[in-house]
């Protein structure tokens, strides 16, 4: 199974009934010239890329914004419009008193599969105590968390709040909580490597192509700045394919991974198996 673990559904037509809503989302995420994407066309693009499921991220910054960027109900709308094609992650704004209640509702009533947080947008460090109830709920519910890590292209997102090593306290305090430090934590990717090796519950994704082509960029990161043996032999079970849709087209981001000089079993892990383990669909072998 091929899974894209990192996609923003902000342009999907089924959650953008009017231009005002679409414009709000485009400005918030910073995808200015992009247009509305019909859901059936998004499915054709997934099919063209050979992707079985795409994980779509809910995002809630409503403590300082008129409405969630993508609400949990809107994530549910996409799931219902294309059953079986998407995995929905919830958003919750930890600055709001009802954040835990909303997350509970997203899990129990809407059936969402995990939580997404961009602490740079929230201007919260990972050791902020307001995160603890959400982390505990996710750990107790068996739901994983994806954090923006390192660079975020979204406007108004200071990177200092998402430095990978700052997530160490969460990884220690919640050892049964699977967390993804997305974007490989670039430009602090060596910190992320340490986190992957040290903590069995820490994962990352490949939504980090910020310069050049995916093929050239992944080659730079995994074969020049690292030895390819690091990925193949030390954390092959921790890296998940993520496109960062709509920043990159899924088929092109995936080509970059397919061009890496890695074994077939490693590529299969990157493209899907690791995501299945992260999502709790498969047992992880910790030996």
């Amino acid at each position: 199974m091929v899974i894209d673990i990192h996609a923003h559904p902000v342009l999907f037509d089924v959650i953008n009934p009017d231009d005002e809503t679409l414009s709000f989302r485009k400005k918030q995420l910073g995808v200015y010239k992009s247009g509305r994407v019909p859901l059936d066309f998004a499915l054709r693009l997934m099919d063209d890329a050979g992707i079985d499921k795409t994980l779509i991220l809910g995002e809630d910054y409503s403590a300082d914004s008129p409405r969630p960027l993508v609400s949990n109900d809107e994530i549910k709308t996409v799931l219902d419009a294309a059953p079986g094609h998407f995995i929905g992650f919830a958003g919750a704004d930890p600055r709001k008193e009802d954040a835990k209640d909303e997350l509970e509702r997203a899990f129990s009533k809407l059936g969402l599969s995990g939580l997404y947080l961009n602490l740079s947008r929230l201007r919260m460090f990972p050791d902020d105590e307001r995160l603890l109830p959400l982390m505990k709920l996710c750990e107790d519910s068996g739901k994983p968390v994806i954090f923006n890590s390192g660079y975020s292209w979204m406007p108004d997102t200071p990177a200092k709040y998402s430095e990978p090593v700052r997530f160490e306290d969460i990884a220690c305090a919640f050892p049964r909580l699977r967390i993804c430090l997305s974007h490989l934590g670039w430009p602090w990717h060596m910190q992320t490597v340490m986190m992957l090796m040290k903590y069995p519950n820490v994962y990352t994704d490949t939504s980090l192509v910020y310069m050049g082509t995916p093929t050239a960029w992944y080659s730079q990161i995994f074969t020049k700045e690292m030895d390819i043996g690091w990925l193949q032999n030390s954390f092959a079970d921790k890296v998940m394919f993520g496109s960062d849709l709509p920043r990159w087209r899924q088929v092109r981001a995936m080509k970059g991974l397919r061009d890496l000089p890695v074994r077939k079993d490693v590529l299969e892990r990157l493209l899907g198996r690791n995501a299945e383990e992260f999502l709790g669909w498969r047992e992880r072998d910790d030996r």
Partner: protein
Amino acid sequence: MIVKLYEKQLESKKEFDLILITDQVREAVADSGVKDGLCAVITQHTTTGIMVNEGLPDVEKDIEILLEKLVPHDDPYVHTRMLPSYGTCSGNSPGHLKSLLAGNHCLFPVIDGKLVLGHAQDIYFAEFDGLLRRKYYIHIMGE
């Protein structure tokens, strides 16, 4: 003088996709009421083209092979960076350069209310950056 502008939409099915649009252009000419004049077919995009060639699959494949040789996918292109005005990454330089080679439009005579084409000629909307939903114009002017 009659001037008619038609906006047509289509959806490409793959990254390189030569889509025959001859029938759509003929229909527009017939609908326009122009008896003698000129018909322009113009793409709205910068990674597509409008081309004329013989509508045969082997010719289409040779065109694809030639353009791929001239504009390889993995050359070190300059247009490979984050675009602040889009909020996305530019990964489609080959499409832009193939569009340059193909040209953005073609012109055809209209005589006796009909589109004039050579017996082997067909009109293509040429996709170099698919899959995408695309638009092109058919602009007809005359008496």
